[in-house]
């Protein structure tokens, strides 16, 4: 069984210590933060852009922005993850604004690397991933944002709310709508695939 999707997050105490040192310019702590959050930011960007190369670019830009902003981070305003993903979200919005027209035509998940050890799982996972990315495009933006922050990144409802500047109740509603809608879209997608298979000689 695969480990829980949030099992690699540090405890609050550990994270506070790392962030505190990073705020003071400790290079080791900055490296630790980078290692902790790079995969998550990348996952979020991959879900948002649907393209690994773009996800890499924007992820890198997010960390450069973090460097400039972390000195002003304050715990009492938001947990670190919520603060970080707020930056990530803004960076994506800025990126999408600049590259809007080009991004619309980006092929989904092209070149996504395979990493699962078992080839069978790899194919199945990849298909599921591509299918999710594909059908999620039909969701309203607010639902998509909640979906990716909750399930691609692994943020709690509370942190998702803070990252998006929404209330927790609002995030719960969006989460419910997103999953319910996704379920219908996936079923529809399965039907279409089945129809394609039957239609093929």
């Amino acid at each position, binding site marked *: 069984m695969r480990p829980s*999707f949030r099992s690699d997050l540090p405890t609050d105490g550990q994270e506070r210590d790392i962030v505190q040192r*990073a705020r003071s310019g400790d290079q080791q702590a900055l490296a630790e933060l980078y290692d902790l959050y790079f995969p998550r930011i990348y996952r979020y960007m991959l879900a948002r852009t649907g393209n690994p190369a773009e996800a890499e670019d924007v992820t890198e830009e997010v960390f*450069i922005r973090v460097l400039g902003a972390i000195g002003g981070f304050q715990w009492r305003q938001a947990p670190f993850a919520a603060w970080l993903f707020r930056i990530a979200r*803004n960076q994506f919005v800025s990126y999408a604004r600049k590259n809007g027209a080009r991004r619309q035509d980006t092929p989904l998940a092209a070149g996504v690397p395979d990493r699962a050890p078992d080839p069978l799982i790899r194919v199945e996972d990849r298909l599921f991933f591509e299918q999710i990315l594909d059908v999620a495009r039909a969701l309203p933006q607010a639902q998509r944002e909640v979906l990716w922050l909750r399930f691609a990144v692994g943020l709690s409802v509370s942190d998702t709310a803070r990252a998006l500047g929404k209330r927790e109740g609002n995030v719960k509603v969006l989460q419910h709508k997103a999953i319910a809608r996704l379920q219908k879209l996936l079923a529809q997608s399965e039907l279409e695939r089945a129809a394609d298979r039957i239609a093929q000689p």
Partner: protein
Amino acid sequence: MMKQRFEEVLAECLEAVTTGQRTIEECLALYPQWRDRLEPLLRLGHRLGQAPFPEPDSAFREKARERFLAAAQARPVAPRQPRRFLPALPVLSRWRWRPVFNVQIGRPAGWRRVAATMAVAFIIGFVGFSSFAVATAGNSLPGDWRYPVKRLTERARLTFTFGEDARREYRIHLAEERLHEVQELASQEHQISESVLRQLVETTEPLVNALEPDSVPPDQIQRITDLTAEQKDTLDRVAPLVDQKAVGTLEEAKVVSSEGHDKAMEALALAGSQGQSAGEIQSLTTPEAGTPTAGPVASPTGVPTPALSPSAVATPTPAQGASTSASDTPTPEPTSLPSESTPEAPSPTATPAAPEQRVTFLPDDTTAGLKWNLLTIGDFSLRVPADGSADWAISTLTGDAGERILVGHYQSGGFDARIMVQVSTGEAFIQALVEGTVRQVSPEEVRSLVSGPVADVILHVLESVNASP
């Protein structure tokens, strides 16, 4: 009610299932009344939580990590000290507590005891309420009864913040707070009133007006850049929620954030330029693309230059070795040409006048999909992206080394590529951000360091440099 409850249950179960605290079956057993509806959503949510989102390419991740750490070393994180509302109070333990009134009144009568109790209760209640209002006002939004308390607290704190940098820091914080309030109101789908936008303008405008690259620390310039960029995005997004009466203020706010962003970017360019002495940065207010007129731009020394008619625009003769792409622009005969056998610079005069600057729109030049201007400074010219070419900043810098022109491509809080041209000599340097540091690169390297369109612009600027020594 029922709907809300189901969302709560779903959220609780998803959290428990994705973090491994409960199995799906355990959750369903807890809420049997929702079983049919809950089960498919929980299974999908669980699968999403376990979904094999691809990991970043390890080689890229390693290289990006190196670049991040190099950038961290090049630009050390500057911790910002928390600002105190009031100077620290004297240590209370040193105080000697004494009765305020030294009056022997004996045992109070019954009414006195009641009155004293009520007075104490009132004081405690008043202090408690005031403390509550002050403590919770920080998160309040316009329209909330605590909001005036929040603004009052901010004003008091600003009054007791001393030092130019600290006050500017706090003013930036206030502008960020006003922006955050607009975002919060929009997220709750509240109408954005005129007064909310007015406050945004009034906190941002003074920051931008006082943005002098020589005196503002780079981290503050960076914050103002980020602030204005986010303002631009936010104002575009919240426009449908803006009160009809506030449309004019919305436009004003957009102008302030847009112009503020341009100014902050220029300041960043100067802050990041290597070896630039404390000179003067002069923004180039280029004419609107599409208006092929020529006119003077502000002189770096502040000395007004006389207006020039469009016919006075001249493209200087190309310098030795400098190719020109100006064949599609009118090139009137120069009045005098320097002899090729005398490459020496003209003999200096005692007080050289500031060179005349002109900007001419080039409608036929669409290199890299941008609009272009011809910038002429005295006997010197080069092509630069016109206003409205997003992500490109153009500035003139006047320092000990003479006048320089900077054309930079702005990306995510910094310049990834830029061309610096020394006007007096016609010498052009290309600089690029390589592994976290800015260094000079050759034209041949440009394409391997920056994206195609950025390289096209940089090389086009370089090729267009014309100087008559």
